[in-house]
């Protein structure tokens, strides 16, 4: 389907189903239960899942395929956000031109940074990209204040021109981003007994774009271009002596992944029309590296999983405080309850980074291929089990293995 083989089509369909039913999948607990705080199915967080999924998928095209580790990808995220907000200020509140401009501008930006940074490889490349991103961050924070809003960030105002739209709504408010009249913040609640599911227009727009971005990534991975990028990672010397110029290949990969980052930035601003310099900071660049490695660099689905994993921790674990913990351990005798709370305390709330760090270490040490490798191992375990079994199950397993 769509020019993909069977496995890739299956993968695309899985992502499509996950995106479509995310409001259900992420809200498994009834609202009144104590576990409701583990529900992640609210629009704001779901949007973040898919937006960072796009960011990580794009990053993986560079890092996963060519092995060039960029430590400055957040700069493109920031450029994307600023361009989108400027579109909202000057043109109209429609998200389409905003997103287009963010992709375009971040692509140009990536071309310039990539052209210079790709003169070096390995750690020097990483440092160059980091330097560029930090420079962009510092400039956005100070010198470029008229363009970026400096410390306060870039926000919409009542007196913005918006030549194709309106400066103010009839009620005297700033209009909100919309897709041809469909407001991005528009939501519809479905209440089923004790469960509440929210369907949000902005989320579904992001999810659609994620699907398109994911599809593009599959095509790139399976194309001759993608094969050349893997060849760059494998042996540049042989590339050169095979008559191939590695530089345009790496530069193209850099620009494409920069455009993915710009797309993510543009979407971020479309969901919430403001942009700040902190989006370009090195911590944001580091985060996408973590997402990709945690999920599985060089795999298709890995970065999306990694992005979801990290964003879930950031938003859910960070909200657990001592009161919640006391609630959990209330069944224990007083002394033991306090002891348990003291033990768990450093790992939740503000300490969520500690939990994430430990999990990251465990994954890198025991599953170097990331979460995807974990999934594959579990899959193999089940397959082995049904080979050992007897009767129709074993026959089915044999046929399946023969088909592969």
């Amino acid at each position, binding site marked *: 389907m769509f020019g993909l083989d069977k496995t890739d089509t299956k993968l695309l369909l899985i992502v499509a189903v996950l995106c479509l039913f995310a409001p259900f999948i992420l809200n498994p607990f009834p609202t009144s239960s104590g576990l409701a705080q583990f529900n992640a199915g609210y629009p704001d967080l779901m949007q973040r899942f898919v937006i960072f999924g796009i960011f990580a998928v794009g990053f993986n095209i560079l890092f996963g395929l060519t092995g060039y580790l960029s430590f400055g990808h957040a700069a493109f995220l920031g450029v994307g956000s600023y361009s989108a907000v400027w579109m909202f200020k000057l043109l109209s509140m429609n998200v389409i031109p905003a997103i287009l401009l963010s992709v375009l501008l971040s692509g140009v930006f990536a071309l310039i940074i990539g052209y210079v940074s790709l003169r070096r490889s390995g750690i020097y490349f990483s440092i160059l990209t980091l330097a560029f991103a930090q420079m962009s961050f510092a400039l956005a924070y100070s010198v470029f204040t008229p363009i970026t809003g400096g410390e306060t960030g870039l926000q919409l105002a009542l007196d913005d021109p918006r030549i194709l739209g309106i400066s103010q709504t009839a009620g005297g408010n700033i209009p909100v981003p919309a897709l041809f009249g469909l407001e991005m913040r528009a939501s519809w609640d479905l209440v089923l007994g004790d469960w509440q599911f929210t369907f949000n227009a902005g989320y579904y727009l992001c999810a659609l774009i994620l699907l398109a971005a994911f599809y593009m990534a599959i*095509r790139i991975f399976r194309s*001759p271009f993608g*094969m050349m990028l893997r060849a760059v990672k*494998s*042996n540049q010397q042989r*590339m*050169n002596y095979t*008559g191939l*110029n590695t530089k345009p*290949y790496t530069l193209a990969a850099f620009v494409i992944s920069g455009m993915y980052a710009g797309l993510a930035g543009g979407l971020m601003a479309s969901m919430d029309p403001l942009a700040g310099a902190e989006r370009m900071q090195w911590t944001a660049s580091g985060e996408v590296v973590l997402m990709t490695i945690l999920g599985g660099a060089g795999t298709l689905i890995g970065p999306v999983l990694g992005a979801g994993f990290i964003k879930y921790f950031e938003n859910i674990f960070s909200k657990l405080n001592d009161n919640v913990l006391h609630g959990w351990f209330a069944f224990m005798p007083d002394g033991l309850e306090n002891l348990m709370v003291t033990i768990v305390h450093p790992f939740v709330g503000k300490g969520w980074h500690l939990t994430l760090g430990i999990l990251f270490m465990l994954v890198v040490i025991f599953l170097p291929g990331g979460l995807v490798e974990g999934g594959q191992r579990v899959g193999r375990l089940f397959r082995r089990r049904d080979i050992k079994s007897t009767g129709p199950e074993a026959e089915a397993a044999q046929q399946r293995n023969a088909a592969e």
Partner: protein
Amino acid sequence: MGILEVKDVGKRFGGLQALGDVNLSVQENSCHAIIGPNGAGKSTLLNCLIGKLIPDTGSVLFDGQSVLGRTPYEICQMGISRVFQTPEIFGDLSVLENMMIPIFAKRDGAFELNAFSSVFAQRDVLEQAEHMLAEMNLADKRHMHAAAMSRGDKRRLEIAMCLSQNPRLLLLDEPTAGMARADTNNTIDLLKQIKDERDITIAIIEHDMHVVFSLADRITVLAQGRPLVEDTPDKIKGHPKVREAYLGESA
């Protein structure tokens, strides 16, 4: 005039004159060996031919065109392929993919942004690659990780990758270095077969006299960066100067 003309090439590294006044003419469709003791400048000369080093003096002409100042990929696109001392292949890729990359390079040139079609939809490239693998007896290993192959198979694959581009000149840098006797003999047979079946010029740098004398039509002996003699294998074997400089102890 030969297909490869090296004229008065000199190269100096600091105080060391690695090459001086090297003149060499490789005739089309011949096999020309360059031998010499360690430090004779064989590798430096080779690096000057394929764009890795630029000589201080002299000129290198391939088919009448200068190769000096061109990058390795441009020189490869001109028709010179190089086989390395340790096989340089794409270890992380499958054998079939390894085989397809040079064919893509030949078809599409040094860069092609072909990012939206499937690799396996390129029937012409796939067929050529399969054909080449079958010819080289590597067809049963096509889905193997290239890095997992034996040294001898890696060498076969590398040579196959070079040949798939139909180069006019094949440069081999000690192709049997570090190989077991059986693998060395296989490689010699393979190279003989290539020489007989194809219109190709081979220039080979080698340490192993057995390899050189069974393949070469002409031999140039380098010593201390200068060509000592150039002649046919039979004459080289008995040449007193060569015995003195190179074969001295072993012959």
